[in-house]
């Protein structure tokens, strides 16, 4: 009994996908404090369960996997870069030149004659630019020789005389202007320019932060490393106090709970794919000052990539990835869906033929059964018509005054009632009985044929099978009844045919009476 119970339980789990689908979403819903009422194994609606499965498990799994994709993809690209772009992709025949160029553009744009520093006073503009370049690029200034050479070429001697000691070339106004307006002296200009450069960096950082927000945190990933000797026993108050005093509330620190109960302190940095890839490029190519530009750009494309992937999986439902791209390509799972649809079509055809194998024989058996009653009704109806023909003939004679009154009275009172009696007492009851059985059979045939037509026009038989179950049962029962009733119907036909023969003979007699009227009446010969 226990085994049977286990089997039933297991099979129930299969039917509702798996038991964990039912139980686990509840745990998650409670853990998240969601307001949604999740069924706890009492609602056996498959679609409902799948909807909750999607909300509480699959969407979450997809989001977490997307983050893992981002991480693993970054690692993979970095490894690729580290191996020197093994495989030499054709997009980049000279990566060093490409990225050096990018770095050069950043510095060159800022320091160039047309750039933000273009209106610096000539005598010290070079000093400031050089100072900024040296400060920003540190040991790699030789890489910017070309840009800086152009700036050096911009120097002219208009104010040189003044700063060289010739007070007459500007006088007091020039002196006041140089000392009070920041950009007119070397120190103020340097500070101003440096401030602006920091401002630009800050703007870039804010832009990256906005990208992070747009990416719903997909772009950021905390990279934590254990602090050597930073593992403590949380039960040891002294160790805890000492560690906390060092760490404080720093957001760059993380406390990792170990399986053995100890706690390890970690230092963390928040990396984005752009920064990781960019830093690795910088390291490999020894190109400084590129990360601000490249990291931002890489992040923006990564953001678009991941968002698109998430949209395809979550936005498009968990049939996900089924949407074709804007380029008209066939998405991966569309092939799978096509296969499933083909299977469904084949399944529908198979089910259709199976249902036909139930309905069609039932309809045939009922038609066969009904045909006996059709024949019987036709025979009796013929007899009735013969009676009616005789009656009509007699009535026409009765109303004809050329015949004697007594002969007409005889026919009126004797033959007509006899015909009426035959019709009402023998023919009509028999006919009514036969017609009732015929109509009942016709109704059964109509019901089954309607169901059959509905199935033929249905595109999804499988999902409607439970609804057809009653019709299938009706068809099976009707066929059994029809087959079983065939011999009875045959006997009824034979009986009806025998009776019809007798009716026909009697009707013929009345027709003959009419034909022989009035000579065959007891009052014949007596004329009016």
């Amino acid at each position, binding site marked *: 009994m226990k085994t049977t119970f286990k089997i039933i339980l297991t099979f*129930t789990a299969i039917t509702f996908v*798996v038991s964990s689908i039912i139980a686990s979403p509840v745990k998650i819903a409670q853990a998240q404090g969601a307001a949604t009422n999740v069924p706890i194994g009492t609602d056996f609606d498959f679609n409902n369960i799948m909807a909750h499965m999607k909300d509480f498990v*699959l969407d979450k799994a997809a989001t977490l996997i997307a983050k893992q994709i981002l991480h*693993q*993809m970054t690692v993979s690209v970095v490894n690729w870069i580290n191996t020197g772009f093994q495989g030499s992709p054709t997009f980049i*025949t000279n990566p060093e030149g*490409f990225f050096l160029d990018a770095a050069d553009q950043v510095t060159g744009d800022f320091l160039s004659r047309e750039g933000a520093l273009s209106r610096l006073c000539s005598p010290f503009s070079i000093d400031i630019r050089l100072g900024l370049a040296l400060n920003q690029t540190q040991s790699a200034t030789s890489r910017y020789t070309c840009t800086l050479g152009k700036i050096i070429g911009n120097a002219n001697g208009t104010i040189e005389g003044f700063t060289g000691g010739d007070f007459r070339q500007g006088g007091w106004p020039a002196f006041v202007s140089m000392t009070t307006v920041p950009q007119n002296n070397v120190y103020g200009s340097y500070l101003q320019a440096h401030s602006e450069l920091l401002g630009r960096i800050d703007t870039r950082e804010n832009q990256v932060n906005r990208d992070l927000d747009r990416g719903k945190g997909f772009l950021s990933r905390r990279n934590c490393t254990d602090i050597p000797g930073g593992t403590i026993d949380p039960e040891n108050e002294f160790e805890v106090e000492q560690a906390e005093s060092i760490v404080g509330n720093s957001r760059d620190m993380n406390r990792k709970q170990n399986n053995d109960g100890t706690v390890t302190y970690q230092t963390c940095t928040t990396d984005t794919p752009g920064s990781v890839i960019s830093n690795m490029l910088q390291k490999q190519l020894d190109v400084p000052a590129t990360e601000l530009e490249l990291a931002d750009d890489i992040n923006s494309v990564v953001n678009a990539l991941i968002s698109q992937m998430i949209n395809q*999986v979550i936005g498009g439902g968990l049939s996900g990835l089924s949407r074709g791209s804007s*380029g008209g390509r066939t998405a991966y799972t569309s092939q799978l869906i096509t296969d*499933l649809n083909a299977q469904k079509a084949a399944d529908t055809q198979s089910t259709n033929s199976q249902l036909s194998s139930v309905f069609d024989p039932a309809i045939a058996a009922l038609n066969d059964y009904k045909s006996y009653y059709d024949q019987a009704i036709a025979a009796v109806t013929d007899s009735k018509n013969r009676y009616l023909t005789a009656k009509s003939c007699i009535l026409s004679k009765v109303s004809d005054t050329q015949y004697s009154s007594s002969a007409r009275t005889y026919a009126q009172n004797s033959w007509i009632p006899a015909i009426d009696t035959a019709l009402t007492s023998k023919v009509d009851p028999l006919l009514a009985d036969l017609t009732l059985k015929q109509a009942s059979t016709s109704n059964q045939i109509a019901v089954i044929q309607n169901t059959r037509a509905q199935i033929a026009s249905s595109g999804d038989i499988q999902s409607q099978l439970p609804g057809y179950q009653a019709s299938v049962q009706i068809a099976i029962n009707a066929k059994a009844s029809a087959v079983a009733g065939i011999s009875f119907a045959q006997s009824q036909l034979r009986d009806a045919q025998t009776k019809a023969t007798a009716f026909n003979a009697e009707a013929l007699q009345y027709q003959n009476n009419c034909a022989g009227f009035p000579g065959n009446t007891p009052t014949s010969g007596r004329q009016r």
Partner: protein
Amino acid sequence: MAFSSLRLQTPLIFVVCAVAVLATALYVRQGKSRDYAPVATVDVISENEAPRSTSDSWRSQFFSIGTSTAPAPKASTGTAKQNTEPLTLTDQIGRNFFTSYVQLQQGNLIGNETAVQNAVDYTIDTSLESALAPRLYTLADVRVSADAGTAALHGYGNTLVSTFAAHMPTTDAAMIATEALEKQDFSILASIDPVITGHQRMISAMLALSVPKPLEQYHLDLLNGLSMSLYIAQGLRATEKDPMQALVALGTYAPAKNTINTALQGLNVYFRSYGVLFSAGEPGAAFSNISTISQ
């Protein structure tokens, strides 16, 4: 004497001229040989040497005409030959992404939303082309029995449920993978191994099972549903190293479960329609639970 000197000079001059002509001819010939020697490959212009276009319009057109025509190379192609370890789907999408990024950067198109969108679409599509797919069985894989009598149907129902009861995993791969990702503890993924084994055993058992002819389609659907479930479990098992394949596998979750559910319902209806009843003690009695499911 003078005459004889002249006579001696003539052949000398001829010899000197002949040597000079031969030397010149030889020099010219050698020079031609140098000129026509095959150039050692470099027909690719480096970025530094390539003249920069003043207009980016051709680049915009290049990236905007549709991803299917973008001649971006598959970054993985060349590399795969040199690496002994095959690239995962995530590796491929990473490289394809970086290739697209560099192309956009070179084309100064990072700020062009259409170009970025097309590049992203192209990256996803080209990467997914090499994604693993679940094995889909056909009717030829099903062992069909000609016996479609009530006893055969009855026996099939009982055996099927017994097979499920023996091998069906009681845990779900998606739940396990979610837990592993949440905790960032990928050792948890090992818990998917029994799920994979269970599905493999069920598939093997179902392939060996003799199926009455009228039920072959339902059996095939069940088989394919289980095959897709196996594919999902295997994909999620590799979540750490190849999360892209895991995501693709997760995308087939709903179709897989729908296929299994529909097949079981179909079997249940068929059994009922043909009066195949299971007593309370039989494994097939589990089919009575299915009737409560509403579609």
